């Protein structure tokens, strides 16, 4: 049985992968924000199962990368932090999905 030759060209998308997105917790966060308009901290915490501190840490990195925007507001007397993907974040996530699909589609079982 001959193994198909995989050259560096086929693996280049992997080398170029966005490392901000390519982290399990941040990938979960972005996937959730991708399918909704916006969500608050509690929603993301519940959906991802991350602790508050962990989520906060990843949010900081995503915000620093310009992938999410944060809006702090008060609902009555209670604070609410709303998060949504920026246009840049949405495009970056979409590109990430395309890259990963390209890599996995190119591999044989």
């Amino acid at each position: 049985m001959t193994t198909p030759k995989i050259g560096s060209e086929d693996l280049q998308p992997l080398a170029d992968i966005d490392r901000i997105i390519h982290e399990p917790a941040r990938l979960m966060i972005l996937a959730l924000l991708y399918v909704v308009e916006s969500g608050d901290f509690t929603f993301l915490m519940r959906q991802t199962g991350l602790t508050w501190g962990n989520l906060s840490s990843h949010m900081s990195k995503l915000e620093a990368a310009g992938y999410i925007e944060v809006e702090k507001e008060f609902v009555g007397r209670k604070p609410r932090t709303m998060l949504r993907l920026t246009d840049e974040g949405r495009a970056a996530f979409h590109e990430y999905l395309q890259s990963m699909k390209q890599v996995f589609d190119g591999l044989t079982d």
Partner: protein
Amino acid sequence: MSQNLDLKEIERRVYQSVFQDGLMEIFLGGFLLVVSALFAISMKLILLPSLLVIFLGNPLLERLKKRYIYPRIGYVKLRPEKEADPKGIAVAAIVFVVILLGSGIFSLTMGKDRGWAFWFKYFLPGSTGFMLAIGPFWLGETYGVRRGYVFAVLFLLSGIVIPVLGIASGYEAIGFECLLVGVISLISGVVMFTRFLRKYPIAAEGPPSKGAFDDNP
């Protein structure tokens, strides 16, 4: 990792989490029970609760969600294209009117008196059941909420079965439809809400330390 990233599934789970609290079922059940009671008293009284639900229903539901739901599972704003489309609602209303008129014309082929009696006994409750089924069906189709399909089927079947079995006909049959689906909806809503409150305690209101989110590690 991303090979298994199914965005459709993630979306479906998010929508299911939004509709898991049972409040909508409680509202629907309560409204239907009131309507069924009013059907028994007088048809003219039905307009008032319907208007109250249309204008006050959503604000009241939102108020309850702010108090009991959002502190537990958080707040999410769904994408605009997933919200109720006024054009879709208008189309559904037009379809309902067409069905009513069409069934009326068909009934006339039996003769004026017999046709009217047939239309009133069978087509009116059946058409009403169809119209009431549209909302839950849309919920199931748009958000993947399977309970929506169950309620749609309940509405459709009750609109057909109640007059066919001779339980009631005409407006009485509509009242029975509302009673039957209302009871089921209210009970299932209360059960869901109770389970929801037990499953999700109120989440912490803020980060463990002030400014935690503002720090860049």
